[in-house]
């Protein structure tokens, strides 16, 4: 469900964000310094979702056959790989950088330019990364939870990193502008697929929850932390029998 985060990238007006403020308790689910502003933005984003993003996603999901949607996803994932190589190297993870590079080579050369994910069939599993993960690995705290207009949930670190994701992407730097724009368009279309595939989950969070802001926030934060830490930490498990 990296997609909950990718949902954030929808449509998108990039906002240059302030550098991360130090968080008093980065692990606390109750730390929410921008709650008031965030709630207003969250409500505005739900209006956009209800009237534009969700209907477009449902139309795309129901109108376009699954193999074609999968092809667009594969294309996006493949052409994102060079950016992953850069980030994995910055994270000091050469083996993951190697896999990302191999995936790019195999899928572009033998997978119709990236439409078919042949690399996964060959055991090279897809794993995405971004500047946020690099900053996490460097020990930068996540900062406060931050909801961005048209963008959705994130943290101060995550949204700062998002700006750099494009600035440090070799594909965007070295490919002709038209090709770069086409890839951004493909990733925009793929966001519709993410929204479509997650519809039941997001519907629950956005429209069935008593407090959809809090439900979305704690889901986002827990999901993001587990992803960065590579799974559920045993330290997060509650001893339910000792409490009551």
């Amino acid at each position, binding site marked *: *469900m990296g*997609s909950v985060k990718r949902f954030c990238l929808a449509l998108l007006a990039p906002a240059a964000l302030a550098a991360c403020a130090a968080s008093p308790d980065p692990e606390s*689910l109750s730390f929410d310094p921008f709650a008031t502003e965030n709630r207003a933005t969250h409500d505005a984003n739900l209006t956009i979702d209800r009237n534009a993003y969700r209907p477009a996603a449902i139309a795309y999901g129901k109108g376009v056959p*699954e193999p074609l949607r*999968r092809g667009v996803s594969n294309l996006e994932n493949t052409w994102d790989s060079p950016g992953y190589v850069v980030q994995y190297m910055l994270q000091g993870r050469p083996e993951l950088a190697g896999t990302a590079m191999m995936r790019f080579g195999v899928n572009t050369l033998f997978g119709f330019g990236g439409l078919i994910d042949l690399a996964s069939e060959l055991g090279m599993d897809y794993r995405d990364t971004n500047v946020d993960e690099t900053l996490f690995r460097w020990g930068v705290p996540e900062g406060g939870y931050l909801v961005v207009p048209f963008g959705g949930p994130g943290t101060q670190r995550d949204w700062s990193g998002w700006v750099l994701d494009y600035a440090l992407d070799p594909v965007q730097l070295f490919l002709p502008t038209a090709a770069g724009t086409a890839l951004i368009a493909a990733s925009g279309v793929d966001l519709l697929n993410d929204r479509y*595939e997650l519809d*039941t*989950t997001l519907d*629950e969070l956005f429209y*069935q*929850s*008593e*407090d959809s802001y*809090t*439900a979305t926030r*704690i*889901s986002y934060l*827990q*999901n*993001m*932390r*587990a*992803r960065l830490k590579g*799974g*559920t930490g*045993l330290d*997060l*498990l*509650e*001893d*339910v*029998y*000792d*409490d*009551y």
Partner: protein
Amino acid sequence: MMTTDLGTGLARRGFLAATALLAGAAALPRPLLALTVPQAQAFVGSISGELDRLVNSGRSGSQLYSQFEQILARYADMPVVGASVLGPPWRSATSAQKSAFISTFQSYLARKYGRQFEEYRNARIQVTGGKDAGRAGVLINTTVVRPGRENIGVDWQISDRSGSAKAVNLIIEGVSLLATERAEIGAILDSQGGSIDKLIAELRRRS
């Protein structure tokens, strides 16, 4: 590592193994009852088997939710989950309120998570690992593999502190059910002016 291919006999064998192990363990003095990782994996394998039979049984809607609720009641320690989710108000509740809360909370959960679960047709649950978490129990990692869709990581916290193995939390893609429901139930309780009776009525309305 054990792989449960839903619909094969593996899950049932796992269930038999778990039953045999638990039956054997029950005869021993209490401190020896500590749940091992393989036992917890077999336990999760048997829940997976039941879930698989249900999701592929052709049932849908309220029929599916009520069967789902039965599985929840059998394999999860609902009184402990409910108490933990309700938090401090649990302590001041009367025993009638407690039992009414647990039963409505259970139906509410079955409906809420049953809706998500309905999408898992043709999915396979693979047990991929497990770790002993001491007093908190055992954490079992599973992957829900769905054809043509991204895999979903589901972790199960299993504890035998009640005397037998029970699920006490589900962590879906890092998101803890206990944390999610604590926030949600807390928000409903607030909107009902802190009244447990009104909370119960509201949960009944939603389930």
